[in-house]
C-alpha cells in the first residue's frame, strides 16, 4: 500500500473542510481544526493497479489574525490550494501561500481548486485572473463542495501527479 500525505491549503472559509467532507468520512471532528489547527482524514483512491492512501491534512485557513502552521506541511507529497471564487482576496492569499509552501517543502505537485463554482455568476475572480494563473503553469479545477463538482476530479488529478499514474477515485475505505 502506497501512502501519501496531502495538505489542504487556502485562506479562511474557502471551503476546504467541506471539500474534504465531500470526499471522505473521517474519525475526527471539526473542532480539532480550531484547537490545534489541523484535521486529519483519509481517502483511498485507485491509481492504476495499486491503491493509493491519501492522508489528508486539512489545515486551518489563514486569515489576517492567524498564520498557518508551516510545520504541518512537512513531508507532504502534494497539496490542494483552495480559492473561494466569490472572494477575490482568497486568490491573493493563495498565491502568497503557494510561495510560502514551496519555500518550505520544495516543489511538490499541487492543484488549485476554484471553489464555490455553483455561485460562478457572483464570482469576483475574473477570467483574466485565471489566465494569469495558467501563465504560471498552475493546474486549476473548478469545484463545488455543495454540488459535488470537480471534487473527485481534483483529488484524482493530484494522485496522478504524485504517483505519475492515472488515478481513479474510489469511495472511502
Amino acid at each position, binding site marked *: 500500500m502506497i501512502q501519501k500525505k496531502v495538505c489542504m491549503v487556502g485562506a479562511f472559509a474557502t471551503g476546504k473542510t467541506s471539500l474534504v467532507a465531500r470526499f471522505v468520512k473521517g474519525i475526527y471532528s471539526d473542532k480539532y481544526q480550531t484547537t490545534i489547527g489541523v484535521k486529519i482524514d483519509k481517502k483511498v483512491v485507485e491509481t492504476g493497479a495499486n491503491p493509493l492512501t491519501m*492522508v489528508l491534512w486539512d489545515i486551518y485557513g489563514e486569515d489576517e489574525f492567524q498564520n498557518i502552521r508551516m510545520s504541518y506541511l512537512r513531508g507532504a507529497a502534494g497539496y490542494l490550494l483552495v480559492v473561494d471564487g466569490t472572494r477575490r482576496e482568497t486568490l491573493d492569499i493563495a498565491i502568497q501561500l503557494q510561495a510560502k509552501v514551496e519555500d518550505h517543502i520544495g516543489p511538490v505537485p499541487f492543484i488549485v481548486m476554484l471553489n464555490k463554482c455553483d455561485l460562478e455568476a457572483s464570482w469576483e475572480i475574473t477570467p483574466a485572473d485565471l489566465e494569469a494563473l495558467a501563465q504560471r503553469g498552475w493546474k486549476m479545477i473548478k469545484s463545488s463542495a455543495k454540488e459535488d463538482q470537480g471534487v473527485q476530479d481534483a483529488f484524482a488529478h493530484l494522485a496522478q501527479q504524485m504517483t505519475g499514474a492515472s488515478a481513479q477515485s474510489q469511495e472511502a475505505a
Partner: protein
Amino acid sequence: MDTAAIPHGASPPEAKRNPATSNPDELAELRRLLLGGDLETILQDAQPALEAQAVSEVLAEAIAQSHAQSQKQLTQAAVPTVETAIQTSVETNINILSEALFPIIGPATRKSVAAAIRNLTQSLNQGLEHSLSPQSFKWRWEARRTGRSFAEVVLLRTLVYQVEQVLLIHKETGLLLQQVVSEQTQSQDPDLVSAMLTAIQDFVQDSFNVQSGGSLDTLEVGEMNIWIEAGPQAVLACVIRGTAPQELRGQLQTTLEQIHRAYAAPLKGFEGDQAPFKSSQTYLQDCLKAQFKTQGNGEKQRPTKLLMALGCLTLLLGAWLGLKIQTGHRWQNYVSQLEQEPGLVVIQQQRQGGKFKLSGLQDPLARSPEALLAQTKLQPEQVTMQWEPYLSLDQAFTLKRWQTRLAPPDGVTLRLDANQVLHISGTAPEAWISLSQRLLHRGEGLQDWNTEGLISQDRQQLLALKDRIEQRSILFLPGSSKIEPSQQGTLQAQQQDLAEFLQTAQAIDLAVYITLAGYSDPTGNDQENHKLSQARATAVEQALVQPGIPAQAIATQARGVSSSPTSADLPSAARRVSITIEAPQLQIVPSPAS
C-alpha cells in the same frame, strides 16, 4: 625533466639517493628488462587465481577473528547476501530449505501453540476468579454498558499495564510505516492516528518553542498513556493502558535503534510504500508487553479465597444446622416428657418453620405443660399449645381425684388396688362416713370400694358410754326405795353419761331403748320384794329425768330378787337399780348406705 628522454640505467645516483620515491614506471621498466615480456604476461594471467587462493587460506581465520572481536560489521555486511541466497534457494528449489527447516518448525509451532493455550487458560482463570466477586458485578455492568465482552473488561481492570498498540511512524510525513495491536484491543484507524500524533507533536513544538532536539514524549489521558520515542527517521508511539515501568522506555529506545539500523535505506528513501517495513512487525511485537495484578500469586490466592468463603459458608451452615438439630432435639425431648407425664395426652405435634405446634388432652390434676416447658431451653414464644380437659383413668389420678373429692379427715387412709377398688380405712366421724358413702360411685376409674377398715368415731364413743353406764348400779338400804346420799355421785355420773349417749345417738339417728331394772335382796316375800324393786326403779327414773333425758325414753322394770347378783359378797349389791341400753343398729362399722 622528461624521463622518457633519459635512459633509466643512466641515472643510478638518483635511484640510489631515494629508492622509496622511485617512479613506478621505472620499476616496471626494470622488471621488463630483467624478466622479459613473455613472463610478465604469464604472471598477469595467473594473478586472480593466486589472489583467490591466498584469500581462501585466510578467510575462515578472518571470519573467526571478526566474531572473536565481536565486530558486527561483517554480520551486517553478510545480511543482504544471506537474504538473497535464501531467496534464490527458495525460488530454485523450495524443498531443500523446507526439509532443512522442518525439524525446527515442528517444535517451534508446538511451543507457540502451547503458549497460546497457556494464555487462554490464564484469561479463563482470571475470568473464573473474578466471576463471583462483588467487583465482577460492577464489571459485568461495565461490559454491558460499553458493549465489550466480560473477559475483556476483566483483563482491563486487572491490568497493571498493557501496551495495546505500537505504531511505527515516518517522522517527516507522519505516515504510518507499520503497527501492531494487542489482542482484545479496539483501535482507531492507525493511519489517521499516526498523522494526528505527528500533528500534535508539531503543534506542541511550534506552540511552546521547544528547543531543537526536544520533543513530546508522553501523552497522558486518564488511564491511557502514549509514549513517543523519536529517532532521526522514524517515531515509535506506544499506546499504554495503566502505569508502565520505566524499563519499557529503554526497550522502546532499543527497538527504535534496531529499526533504524535494519531499515536505514528504506527509511531514507521513503516514498509512501509500507511494504519494505512489513518485517519490522517482529520488533514491534516485542514491545506489546503486559502485566496483570493477580499474576504470580493468583493461583495461590484463588483456592485460599474460595476455601475461606466455603469454610465460612460451611461454618454458618453447620451452626445453623446444629442449632436447628439442637432445637429439634429439645423439642422431641419435651414432647416425649409430655407423653410420659400422667394426665397429659399429646395428640398432635408439628414443626412449621421455626415454630412448634402442639395439641392434646390435659387432666385438671396433671402438671402444667407450661411449667414443664419452662424447665427446657426452648423459647416459650416458639411454642403454641392447645389443651382440652379430660379425666385420666390412671390409678394415681383416680386415687388423687377421690382424695380431693372425699377430703378424708386425719386418721383415714385411701388406697386404690389394682382392681380399681378403693379401700377406705381408719377412724372417722359418723357424719363424714355417711357423706362419703353418698359421694362414692362407680366409674371414673373406680370399680368398687371397701370400708371394712373404717371405724365410726361416734359409735365407738357410744359403745364406751354404754359399757360404763351398764357397769354402774345405784344401791339401796334394805327395804328402802329411797336414794341414799351416798349414791348421789353414781346417780350424777349415770345421768351425765346417759345424756351424752342420747345426744350422740340422736345425732347419728340411732334408735335407743333404755331400761331401768330394779332388784331386791332375798329377804322378805317375793310379792314385797317385787313391789320394792319396782319402787326402786321408779325412784331412779324420777331422779334421772331432766332436760336431755326424756321420761319417754326410759322404761322401768321390776325384777324382784336378783337371780344373778353382780356381787354375791355384798348383800347391798342385791338391792340395786341397773341401766340396760339396747341399740340394735349400734356397731362400730356402719352398714353401707345402700
